[in-house]
């Protein structure tokens, strides 16, 4: 495939994929003296990373098994990477959207004259490197290391503004994410290692026949709540708190990389540590279905009460993440595919919405939903894109969001959970209720206060990025086969 990937070994490709953003971060630091060169470096790094990920994708679709050697650390602990379909999808989404997001960032950061832009781009690159590490990790230990690096590298991004508000948000962010991961996730990993004797992700799980139902339930609970990035209620507080970050951060990290790293880990744990067979046969997953459903509905309900646009989107994300957790919790093959697909579908929809929120902030300096009335007539492009993103999130044709919800519903039926199908329906209605009024009022509402004449569309790079992601939502509706093809390679047994 691309970049002469045909001659390289799989191991080399994986390592290069990890190194490119890391080295990119260094180069960004070195080129800090000239913003143009620095931003070009970011774009080139993002492009290179995506090309390599695509090359890996080509190998995976050819049926190749890509893995690195392992580096032993202590008995039962090792570092290692292996590409499997789920991680492949996650890496593609994250690295692909990084390019778009970098374009957007240039417009946003310059448009708002943000300080410390070098640090911003560097941390972004490191965050992406850890995301790739999470996506390709071959065992829980490796995944955990990159999971923590991701938390730490995004902290400076969350507190980028540097004011009291940002610091308070950053505190909650660190406290919840580090707290859950060290107090719940890490002990869960240790317990798993001791019970199973390994931490490798294996098709069908590693716990079969090694633990009774009670142990499994406790472990599952420790994992699900310990993976704080999945924002399962009641550990969702960090996500709204993180909205103090500049919008590109909210867009890529808190709609895509960080939160998806969370639900990705959830899915991986369910698939390759527990195994859906084991969960379905013991019923240890039963409670999780209901917790996810509750998180799903509550997130939407809270979102309706929020007037701040980004806060509303954040709670919407909490709710949408619960879809993925739900998909994993159903422990059926369609459920897993639906959940995994939602990682991609929601990513495109939500990043579009965040981009629009950022564009509105940059162009009109408005942050509250109630202020947007009539703004659609001065910023038609932005609000059209917002509408597309909203429709995709709701799950209406002709946008990609439809498919993931479709498969999730199939998964619920497969598991015999009719109530869950109803929950999915209600949730879609709630989505309509809190998302659609925004573009409708913007287009048809009365412009509030005096005529805001100076407002026009956001800077061009922002618009390009918005255009690309909303186009993505559309394309994903017509061509979901690619993702389905990839995900059907997930080995359940």
């Amino acid at each position, binding site marked *: 495939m691309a970049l002469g990937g045909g001659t390289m070994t799989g191991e080399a490709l994986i390592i290069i994929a990890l190194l490119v953003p890391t080295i990119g971060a260094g180069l960004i630091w070195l080129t800090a003296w000239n913003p143009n060169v620095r931003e070009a470096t970011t774009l080139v790094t993002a492009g290179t990373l995506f090309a390599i990920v695509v090359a890996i994708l080509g190998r995976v679709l050819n049926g190749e098994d890509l893995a690195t050697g392992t*580096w032993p*650390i*202590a*008995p*039962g*602990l090792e*570092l290692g990477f292996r590409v499997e379909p789920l991680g492949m999808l996650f890496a593609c989404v994250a690295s692909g959207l990084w390019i778009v997001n970098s374009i957007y960032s240039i417009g946003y950061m310059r448009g708002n004259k943000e300080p410390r832009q070098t640090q911003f781009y560097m941390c972004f690159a490191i965050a992406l490197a850890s995301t790739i590490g999470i996506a390709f990790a071959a065992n829980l*230990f490796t995944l*955990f*290391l990159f999971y*923590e690096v991701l938390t730490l590298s995004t902290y400076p991004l969350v507190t980028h503004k540097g004011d009291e508000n940002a*610091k308070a948000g950053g*505190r909650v962010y660190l406290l919840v994410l580090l707290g859950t991961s*060290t*107090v719940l996730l*890490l*002990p869960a990993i*240790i*317990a798993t290692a*001791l019970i199973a004797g390994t931490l490798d992700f294996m098709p069908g799980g590693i716990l079969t026949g090694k633990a009774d139902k009670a142990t499994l339930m406790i472990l599952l609970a420790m994992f699900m709540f310990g993976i704080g990035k999945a924002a399962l209620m009641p550990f969702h507080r960090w996500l709204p708190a993180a909205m103090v970050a500049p919008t590109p951060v909210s867009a890529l990290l808190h709609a895509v990389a960080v939160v998806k790293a969370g639900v990705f880990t959830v899915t991986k744990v369910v698939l390759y540590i527990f195994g859906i067979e084991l969960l379905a046969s013991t019923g240890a997953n039963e409670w999780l279905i209901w917790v996810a459903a509750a998180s799903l509905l509550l997130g939407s309900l809270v979102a309706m009460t929020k007037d701040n646009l980004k806060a509303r989107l954040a709670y919407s994300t909490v709710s949408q993440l619960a879809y993925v957790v739900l998909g994993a919790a159903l422990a059926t093959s369609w459920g897993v595919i639906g959940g995994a697909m939602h990682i991609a579908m929601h990513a495109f929809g939500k990043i579009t919405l965040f981009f629009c929120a950022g564009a509105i902030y940059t162009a009109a300096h408005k942050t509250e939903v109630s202020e947007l009335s009539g703004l659609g007539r001065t910023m038609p492009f932005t609000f059209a894109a917002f509408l597309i993103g909203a429709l995709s999130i709701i799950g209406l044709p002709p946008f990609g969001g439809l498919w993931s919800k479709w498969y999730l519903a199939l998964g619920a039926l497969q598991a015999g959970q009719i109530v869950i199908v109803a929950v999915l329906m209600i949730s879609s209605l709630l989505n309509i209720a809190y998302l659609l009024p925004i573009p409708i009022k913007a287009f048809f509402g009365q412009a509030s206060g005096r005529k805001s004449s100076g407002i026009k569309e956001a800077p061009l790079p922002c618009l390009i990025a918005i255009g690309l992601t909303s186009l993505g939502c559309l394309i994903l509706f017509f061509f979901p086969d690619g993702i389905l093809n990839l995900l059907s390679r997930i080995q359940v047994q």
Partner: protein
Amino acid sequence: MISEHLPALQVVVPLLGAVVCAFFTRGDRAWFVALVVSLAMPFIAFGLLLKVLHGGPISYALGGWAPPFGIEYRVDILNAYVLVLVSVIGAVIMPYAKRSVEHEIEADKQAWFYTIYLLCLCGLLGIAITGDAFNAFVFMEVSSLATYALIAMGRDRRALLAAYQYLIMGTIGATFYVIGVGLLYSMTGTLNLADMANRIAGIENSRAVLAALAFLTVGISLKLALFPLHVWLPNAYAYAPSMATVFLSATATKVAVYLLLRYFFTVFGVTVIYADLPISEIFLLLSLAAMFGASIVAVFQQNVKRMLAYSSVAQIGYITLGIAIANKTGLTGGIVHLFNHALMKAALFMAIGAIFYRIGSVKIDDLAGIGKRMPMTAGAFVVAGLSLIGVPGTVGFISKWYLGLGAFQQGWWWLVMLIVLSSVISIIYVGRVVEVIWFRDVAPASRRAKDPPLSMLLPMLLLTAATIYFGFDTVLTAGIAELAAEWLLAGVR
């Protein structure tokens, strides 16, 4: 030729160095002598370690008097490891020492300070290398007397009280040790440890031998600050000059632990320790008391040096826990923690020493916001602090992993949980300091502080980097610790 005499050189060189130092009146010249001597020590230690790894234990007859009548220096895998530990720490802190000592010790006493330091180094290395029970006592007193003097040179007048208190308790400990040796001598008629081990066979359970074991255990436990015999330690570490604290926290207690291991496993033997006597149970209780009691006390300290000192008591609990777990994996954990704890605690005390160098205080309130003024130092503190907690990717995790695995192999699930729980307490006391130094506004006292000079910064960063490096590459640390544990448990005398 010279390599034959390495065991003697290991002790004689610092002794002669101390004599040379005493002739200088200028601190910087004495420092230079101490630097040269300290830098030479790791070469000798590594030379011995390599020889032992390739050719088995080395026996060196001091002065040409053949053992068991003459004093034998006996180097095996365990004490070669301890020699490397002590000499490496001794070498790394010397560049750091110069500025720190110039800042904290009056000019006319600096040469004496280095003299005493070299004597202390000589004593510690001597305890580790000698194969003679009484010779070990002499070296113990050489190092202890030097330690009392080092502590008394602290600027705070309470340093004098701490030194006096330690002198009383340390002398009682050393005297207990001599009583134990005396009883053993009267039973076996020899002072050579290897010879003693042979002759003790058959009379292990006689009352005099058991009394000797009791005296030795209590005496050495005082030196290694086993809970509840630790009361001397917090004040001593808190008020000693920074450089002395760094050195002592990293080495002194470790050497005492070594001596305990030597008596337990090679002189009395595994059967006496584990099968005939409840040593395992006693150490388990005391270790847990240390891990929890001292950690909880650490949480409430206002003086950061004192807090770290209490944390040392807790960490010693982990080391002795390795003895209590009584299997190879657990013992490996204890032994590897000797090294790992030395690295992280030295780095932490160096960081706090550097802060003292700049702002003249180690009270937690005065440290507010220091991270913004001394980012490298505060960063090193955070990384080493993470290691103290035992976050994966740091040395602290490796030690705890082995301990946990060892406990699990014994079927002690509850102990695994307690290890995790005690780590949570360390999150609190480390987190508290991190919170203050990074997230508070800069305190007035530290407005103009900045990172210390390179001579202080580099050793600190070197050790901090080592806490990460040895968190991944465990061949040298855990590998050798495992060999040593295997050797000890095999009962080879």
